[in-house]
């Protein structure tokens, strides 16, 4: 075959100018209880290879229709999720809960009518203030995966502690600590608890908007509440219901103690991010990555609290 120089050049130019189109998201729901399915996120940082699909999503079927627990990072993800969920349940999506403001959980809400999307008032306020910044960051990291994803706000502020869907009642818990407003959901029929990002499992917790002491209080409340298996925001399903909560608490306790000691011992941020990670966290994905992120989030505050004033007139 002989290619003319012109067609060759044309081909090269087309290759160079066509924006790389991202692959499609693979939505693979696994049943974890009567009428409840889990769509696992990748236990990785947000990056082009996973299209930002790193958060766990749950699908709940009810007599009134399909309920989604979080809806992923982009419109394309959310459309694929809705199609998979409606195929599975045979019922249209009637409610989407957005657990908190972070974009890997909720930016996909733009694929739905905002009137069926519900979040805590604090989450809606935070999205109004910071959502565009998060969206810009996601476009920078993910490029074409995000195409068509505009920032929309949930249309329903959650004021009640439960919502009934034709007889299947879901309990809603307004908590905080991972962010200023963290929703958790209990399905009394199965005992399944959706922890959102208050609970991580074998994937290191992230702290960009965290308040560690209120986070601990929220974990205490979740632990004390009767429940069965736990769906963490990131990482594998915890059928026993205590391991993920305990591990999340262990990590944030260790994190705070380690960074506090690092400030007391005169370490700089680079060195604090290189502190050894204990063996008991060896199974945690992205542990070093999240430690270094947490140093960025928490270290300046610890320094301001722990280093003495030394200025003299």
């Amino acid at each position, binding site marked *: 075959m002989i290619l003319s120089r012109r067609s060759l050049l044309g081909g090269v130019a087309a290759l160079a100018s066509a924006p790389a189109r991202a692959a499609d998201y693979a939505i693979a729901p696994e049943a974890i209880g009567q009428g409840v399915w889990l769509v696992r996120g990748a236990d990785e940082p947000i990056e082009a290879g996973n299209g930002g699909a790193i958060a766990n999503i749950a699908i709940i079927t009810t007599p009134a229709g399909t309920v989604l627990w979080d809806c992923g990072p982009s419109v394309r993800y959310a459309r694929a999720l809705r199609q998979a969920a409606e195929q599975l349940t045979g019922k249209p999506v009637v409610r989407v809960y957005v657990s908190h403001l972070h974009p890997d959980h909720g930016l996909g809400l733009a694929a739905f009518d905002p009137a069926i999307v519900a979040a805590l008032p604090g989450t809606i306020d935070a999205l109004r203030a910071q959502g565009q910044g998060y969206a810009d960051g996601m476009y920078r990291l993910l490029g074409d995966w995000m195409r068509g994803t505009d920032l929309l706000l949930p249309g329903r502020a959650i004021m009640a502690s439960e919502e009934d869907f034709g007889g299947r009642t879901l309990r809603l818990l307004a908590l905080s600590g991972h962010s200023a407003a963290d929703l958790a959901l209990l399905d009394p029929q199965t005992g399944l608890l959706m922890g959102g990002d208050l609970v991580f499992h074998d994937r290191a917790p992230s702290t960009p908007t965290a308040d560690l002491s209120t986070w601990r209080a929220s974990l205490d409340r979740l632990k004390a509440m009767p429940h069965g298996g736990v769906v963490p925001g990131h990482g594998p399903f915890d059928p026993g219901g205590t391991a993920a909560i305990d591990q999340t608490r262990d990590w944030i306790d260790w994190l705070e103690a380690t960074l506090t000691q*690092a400030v*007391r*011992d005169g370490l*700089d941020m680079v060195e604090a*991010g290189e502190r050894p990670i204990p063996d008991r966290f060896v199974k945690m994905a992205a542990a070093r*990555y999240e430690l270094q992120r947490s140093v960025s989030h928490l270290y300046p505050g610890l320094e301001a609290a722990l280093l*003495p*004033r*030394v200025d003299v007139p």
Partner: protein
Amino acid sequence: MLQRQASLWVALALVLVAADARATAPVDPLGSPMWAAHARTLFGDDPVRFDPRVKVDFPMIAENQRAFPVAIDARAIPGVVRIVILVDLNPIPIAIDYRPLHAAPYVATRIKLDQRTPVRGAVQLASGEWLVSGGWIDAAGGGCSAPPVSRVKGDWAEHLGEIRGEAWPLPGGLARVRLNFRHPMDTGLVDNIATYHLEALRVKDSGGRTLGEMDIWAAVAEDPAITLMVEDGAGAQLTAEARDTNGRDYRAALPMARQSPMPGGR
């Protein structure tokens, strides 16, 4: 006559080529588009080579492009007289130019990143030779061109002059010094906010001897945090003096903490 003139031109050309060769820095292993220009400005005719003993440490992710931690550790190299933190693709490429007079060749701070860029440490030996190392870091834009947090909050002036810090004795007659200043470190690249930053810092022992001194640019993050390792005259009181571009002076007296259980950090 013609021949003589021609040979003169050849000789002149050779001189020019030789001068040009002397000023040419080695090929950049990071492939930075700004390497040749920065090398010419910063190193002039001094010899330059890349040397992994200049340890340039930073996190794997630029979580905050307004405050990215960087540590330059050249303690494996004897005779270091100067350390420069160079950020190739920042509009303000030099963050710190440090002379560790009676100090270990180590400096850590936080810098602004305006885009994905090489971050380097360049250390100069007494002979004049420069040793360079570093790596690329990805970053969102705007670290240099977004207003400082304290400008947005509007409370920067209330905290100007506050300094936090401490000194920790280290083995080998050294002390680790940490100094955290409150300062907006305005780059001059934000609308209607003129350049305003700390520009000089000096750490002294109780006898007034300068242990280390540095020039500072607005590429250093808002609220500059600086870590050094200076010679410590048997636990004597250390002092720090700084000045900003408005001529405001800053002074600190550093208490000596107990021995750090993590001497040298790592």
